[in-house]
């Protein structure tokens, strides 16, 4: 095996690459930091409180469908999107819902606020990172450890 000599050439190349990498990652960091509101896919109902001029602005709001709020009235779906701080938004949607939209499950609604009611044009179901079979849930329920619905 050859012994690697850290001669000045190798050092020079190393510093050259380090500078390229550092400059590029710093610029990417600055770009993504200044655009973080645009990169975020949705806002939560709590964030809406501190935003002004949300009326008539195209927005995406995400959270959970509030328990006992999902109703079908006059050909429209009506439900509330709630987040961890219990702030909620009333949503009206007049098309077909995705299959996985259920109460107490994740949802993202896209549309506008008109008179404090969110008129959704697109609704997406957001599932979380937990996967388990029904049998595992039944077992957890028997042991009293299940905290879902």
């Amino acid at each position, binding site marked *: 095996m*050859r012994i690697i000599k850290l001669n000045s050439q190798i050092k020079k*190349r190393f510093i050259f690459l380090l500078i390229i990498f550092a400059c590029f990652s710093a610029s*990417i960091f600055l770009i993504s930091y200044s655009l973080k509101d645009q990169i975020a*896919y949705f806002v939560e109902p709590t964030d809406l409180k501190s935003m002004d001029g949300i009326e008539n602005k195209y927005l995406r709001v995400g959270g959970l469908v509030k328990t006992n709020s999902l109703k079908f009235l006059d050909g429209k779906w009506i439900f509330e999107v709630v987040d961890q701080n219990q702030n909620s938004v009333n949503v009206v949607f007049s098309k077909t819902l995705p299959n996985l939209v259920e109460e107490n*499950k994740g949802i993202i609604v896209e549309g506008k606020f008109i008179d404090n009611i969110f008129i959704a044009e697109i609704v997406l179901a957001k*599932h979380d990172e937990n996967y*388990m*079979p*029904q049998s595992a849930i039944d077992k957890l329920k028997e042991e009293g450890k299940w905290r879902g619905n």
Partner: protein
Amino acid sequence: MFAITPNTLSNFMISLSRYIILLSLALISVSIFLIIFLENDYYQGISFKIMFIHVPTAWLSLAIFLVMGISSIIGLIFKSPTAFTVARSLSPIGLIMSIIVLVTGSIWGNLTWGAYWVWDARLTSMLILAFIYLGHILLLHSFEHFQKADFAASILAIIGLVNLPIVKFSVDWWTTLHQESSVLRMGGPSMTNDYLITLLVSFFGIFMLTIFWFSNIFYIIVEKRKMERSILLND
């Protein structure tokens, strides 16, 4: 370590490749068997089973880029032809892997979210990764001398390394439609053990297939260069 010539590495990998492909086929068959007989997810039903292709290929497309980036750094600093050839033979595999991730992800997304594609941080950064792989391949083929091509493509691979943590942590840094990581996360995996074992078996099967594929591409490149050299010498 840097004294390994492309020829030695190629012969070593080709001598092992028959065992690697057998192991890969065995693991993939076991994982197909496991996936078929696995119980469905309580919420997503059968559509979650596409995860057993989507997640291993996603891990591999990130891991392949990491290896490509590191070997590009070694290649540039130590002028090692072996490291450059490793990077050169990995990028087509990475491109195919990232295309599989995007396609299976779209199918899964349409079944669960209700949309094939959205422009959230995870999906967009993954698409950028696929484009960097494509750019790497195009750069490698746009020079007459392979040494120049290797130099240009390595710079792209090193710059592209910045994208890796963005892909991995995009779901934690920004709000996304894509769910968070289930296995490589704080507090352990968020799936039951039978799912996790199936996922790991499937991952190692595809991983072995990747190594087999890589050693074949590497062998072809080395043999092609030998042939070109002998033609030049005979002229």
